[in-house]
C-alpha cells in the first residue's frame, strides 16, 4: 500500500516506512539512542530528498525521545537545572544549524556537508565504541575483570570560571562547557537530522562528570526539546517537514523501541556497545563510499522553483 508524501511529493510504500521506523526504533530501544543517525541516512539512501529526510526525522526523534523520557521523569532520573542550560544553548545552536542548512541547500552543498558530517562524527564515535568495547571484551575473556573505574572528580573543565552548582547531579562546574556542549549538539542535530544523544551522553559522562543515573534521562530531555525546536525551525525556514513521513516512521519507531528495550536488558553492556559501534561504523563507511568512490553518475538535477519564460 503506497502513501503519498505531500512535502517530498512522492509515493512510498507505507509498510516500508513503518518497517524502517520499527527497525531503527528497535535498535534505538536496544542501545538507548535516538536513532536519528540511522533513520536519516536510510531515508536518503532510499531516495527521499536529503532536506526532507533531515527535517522529518527531527519530528520522529521528538516522538522517540518523548517515549524514552517519560519513564525517566517518573523515576526522577533527570537533572532539570542542568537540562535548562543545555536546552537554552541548544536552541541557539539549532538556530545556527537551520540557518547553515538553508545556506548550504541553496549553494548545492548540503548533501556534501551531510555526508562529511556523518562520516566524521559516526566514524569517530563508532571507532571509539568498538575500540572500548573490544578492549573490555578481551579483558573479560582473559578473566581479569577490572572494577569499573569511576570518572575522576576533577579534570581541566572544572577549573573554568563562572561556576554553577547543580544540586541534583552533585556538581559544581563552570557553565561554559555546559553551554558549549548544548550549543554544539543543537547545531549538529539540526544540520544532520540527528538527536545527538550518542554524542551528548559521552560528553555528559566524560566532560561534565554527570552521575550515571542522570545521564540518559537528562540527555533524552535535552534531545526532546532541541528536536522539537528544530522541527518548528525547519517547518518555518525551509518547509521541508513532511508530517506524513514523520508520522509513519514514528508509529513504527515507538513500537519497535519497546521490543528493543526488552531485548536490551538481556545483553551485556559491552556487547551492546560493540554492536552499536559496528552499526555506527557501517553507516559511516557508507557515507565514505559516496564521498571517495567515483559516483556512477556525476550529474544530478534539482528543482529550484516555478519556471519563467526564456
Amino acid at each position: 500500500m503506497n502513501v503519498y508524501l505531500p512535502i517530498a511529493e512522492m509515493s512510498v510504500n507505507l509498510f516500508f516506512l513503518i518497517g524502517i521506523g520499527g527497525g531503527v526504533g528497535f535498535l534505538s530501544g536496544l542501545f538507548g539512542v535516538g536513532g536519528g543517525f540511522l533513520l536519516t541516512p536510510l531515508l536518503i539512501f532510499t531516495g527521499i530528498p536529503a532536506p526532507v529526510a533531515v527535517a522529518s526525522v527531527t519530528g520522529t526523534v521528538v516522538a522517540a525521545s518523548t517515549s524514552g523520557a517519560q519513564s525517566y521523569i517518573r523515576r526522577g532520573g533527570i537533572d532539570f537545572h542542568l537540562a535548562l542550560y543545555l536546552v537554552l544553548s541548544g536552541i541557539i545552536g539549532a538556530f545556527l544549524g537551520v540557518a547553515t542548512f538553508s545556506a548550504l541547500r541553496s549553494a548545492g552543498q548540503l548533501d556534501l556537508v551531510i555526508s562529511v558530517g556523518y562520516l566524521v562524527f559516526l566514524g569517530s564515535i563508532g571507532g571509539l565504541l568498538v575500540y572500548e568495547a573490544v578492549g573490555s571484551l578481551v579483558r573479560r575473556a582473559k578473566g581479569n575483570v577490572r572494577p569499573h573505574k569511576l570518572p575522576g572528580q576533577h579534570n581541566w573543565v572544572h577549573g573554568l570560571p563562572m561556576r554553577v552548582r547543580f544540586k541534583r547531579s552533585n556538581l559544581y562546574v563552570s557553565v561554559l562547557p555546559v553551554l558549549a556542549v548544548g550549543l554544539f549538539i543543537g547545531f549538529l542535530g539540526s544540520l544532520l537530522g540527528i538527536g545527538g544523544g550518542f554524542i551528548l551522553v559521552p560528553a555528559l559522562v566524560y566532560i561534565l562528570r554527570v552521575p550515571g543515573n542522570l545521564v540518559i534521562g537528562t540527555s533524552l530531555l535535552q534531545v526532546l526539546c532541541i528536536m522539537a525546536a528544530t522541527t518548528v525551525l525547519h517547518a518555518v525556514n525551509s518547509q521541508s517537514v513532511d508530517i506524513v513521513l514523520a508520522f509513519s516512521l514514528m508509529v513504527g519507531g515507538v513500537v519497535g523501541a519497546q521490543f528493543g528495550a526488552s531485548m536490551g536488558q538481556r545483553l551485556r553492556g559491552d556487547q551492546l556497545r560493540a554492536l552499536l559501534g559496528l552499526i555506527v561504523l557501517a553507516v559511516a563507511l557508507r557515507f565514505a563510499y559516496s564521498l571517495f568512490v567515483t559516483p556512477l553518475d556525476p550529474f544530478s538535477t534539482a528543482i529550484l522553483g516555478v519556471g519563467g519564460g526564456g
Partner: protein
Amino acid sequence: MFAVFRFVVFVVCSMVVLTPAPAQRLVSKLSATEVSINSTFAGESLTLFGNVEAPIGENGRSVTGPFDIIIVIQGPATRRVVRQKSPQLGIWLNSDEVIFSAVPAYYHVLTTGPLNKIADEEMLREQGIGLVYQAVVPQNEGQSEAEIARYQNFADQLVRLMGEAKMFGLSERRVSFLSRTFYNANLTLPANVPNGTYLAKTYLLADGELLDQKAERFVVRTTGAERFIGNAARDLPLAYGLASVLIALFTGWLGAVAFRR
C-alpha cells in the same frame, strides 16, 4: 489612385494563392481533465483519442489516409539546476552547475511511428517537438565556443536525467489508429508526477505535412488531506511546525503509556 488599385489587386491575388486547400480537421479529446493525487495515488492512466474529420462542407469520403499523429504532453515549466560532481582533493563534490529557467516538469511524446520518419527536422524544431528542445541552453552575449559546448553538455545531461526519472520520454508507435480515421493512445502518468496545469498537443500529419493541430489542458493536483497538508506547510509554516511537534509528543506519550511495563 492607380497605385492603390494595384496594391489591392496584389493583396487579393496573394490571398487567393496563399489560402491552403481545405485540409482534414482534427477532433481530439482526453479521458480526464483532472488528475487527483490522493493518499493512495500510484500513477494514473490517461486516454487520448480523436478523429480525423473531413474539411467543413465536404463529406467523409474526402478523408484519405494514411495519417500520422504526434501527441505532446507537457507539464508546468520549472526552474532546474544541473550539478556536476568532480573530485576535489579526493572528495567527490558538486563543483559546477548550470541553471535552466524553463524546463517542463513532465514531457512525453507519443507517436504513430518513428518521429524522424513522420515529420522532418525543420517542422519538429519549429514546433519545439522532441526531448532535445526542452532544455533550452542559456544564451549570453559573446558566448565562447567552449561555453556553448559546456551548456550543451549540461542540457544533454538534464534530458537524460529527466528521462531516467521517467519525467521525459518518447514513445514511438504508442498512438494507434483503430479505424482509418480514429486514433487513440494511452499514457500512464508516474506516481510522482508534479502538480500543475498540463498541456496535451495533438498534431495531425500526412506524408510529413502538418495538417492540423489541437491542444487540450488537464490539471494534476493533490486533493483531500494531502492538499490540506501541503497548503498548511506552505501558508502557515509556524502552525504546521507546532502541530507536527504536538503530534510527535502525543504519539511518543501514547507509545510509552500503551507499552508501560
